């Protein structure tokens, strides 16, 4: 095994449990599902976290169960999902702790 030289920037597994070391008193987690209009979860969707000015902040790919997760800060954010089935946006006013959001995509 090799030691990572610095924690990378790639998106971690979106289905993994939250790390035990995570302090939810400090972290603002925005998490949830991407769904199609039929209600089915959409795996492999690209979810973009946009700040209050619409500027890109981060992007992850949904898990096989359609899950995504961001570590942000309290405030207003937009989640924008891109998928082969279409795109969709959801606004979220996030507070410290866990914020659950569903983004629905449609062609």
């Amino acid at each position: 095994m090799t030691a990572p030289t610095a924690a990378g920037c790639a998106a971690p597994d979106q289905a993994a449990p939250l790390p035990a070391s995570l302090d939810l008193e400090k972290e603002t987690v925005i998490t949830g599902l991407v769904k199609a209009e039929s209600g089915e979860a959409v795996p492999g969707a690209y979810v973009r976290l946009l700040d209050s000015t619409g500027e890109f902040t981060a992007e992850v790919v949904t898990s096989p169960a359609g899950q995504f997760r961001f570590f942000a800060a309290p405030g207003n954010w937009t989640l924008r999902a891109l998928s082969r089935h279409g795109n969709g946006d959801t606004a979220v006013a996030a507070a410290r702790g866990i914020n659950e959001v569903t983004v629905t995509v449609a062609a």
Partner: protein
Amino acid sequence: MSRDTALVSAEWAEKNIDAPGVVFVEVDEDTSAYDTGHIAGAVKLDWRTDLQDPVRRDFVNQAQFEALLSERGIANDDTVILYGGNNNWFAAYAYWYFKLYGHRDVKLLDGGRKKWELDARPLVTDKVERPATQYVAQAPDTSIRAFRDEVVDAIGSKNLVDVRSPDEYAGRLLAPAHLPQEQAQRAGHVPTAISVPWSKAANEDGTFKSDDELRKIYADAGLDDSRETIAYCRIGERSSHTWFVLQELLGQRNVKNYDGSWTEYGSLVGVPVALGDEPGEA
């Protein structure tokens, strides 16, 4: 350099999957994406285990790069097409290595994995075996790599481009928002650095914006063409994306990537740091 020599479209790539002398290389930090499906014939490079020195904080040296490419079956005269996830961040980082070690013909796949997937183009899980080569790398071209002292000296004299998100620049976040925020280093940015998030250069499908749009973005942000430029981010991969835009697409000269980036600078003792949305004073 220009768009014609540095970039290929997904259409071109799909037509040239089997072209002789063309090698597709998927580069990711987490290569599990490759294992679930990759472009036919593409070999993989793992940013962490293949491209970083296993002990020191540095990337692979000339001999390690030669051994890696030889083992993956990449030859000096191959046309290498790099692509990956995260909007091609790690592919752009690898592109910068290929240039640093003097590879003649290397290009990025515009839009990377995301565009390819959103287009529903084919991905396969076949195991890819290429015969080993005897790859010979050139001595590293440090004209495209900045080290920390040069960054400190550049404050107020060269273009410093911070390509992280606005909240990381201002010091409100310490890492991209898909990662936990606990970090050892201080928050903020190098004084006088302008904020041009890497994402300004990309469309939402991951493709690069047009040359005219790109020129306007950096001009509006205050990039002075007559000065040398150093781009940085947190660990040097998002800034590779911006380095690629400035030097390889727009043909600017004297652009360096500071791969130490904020994880190094933000941990240095005694260097100046600016907080907030403004570049700050030298």
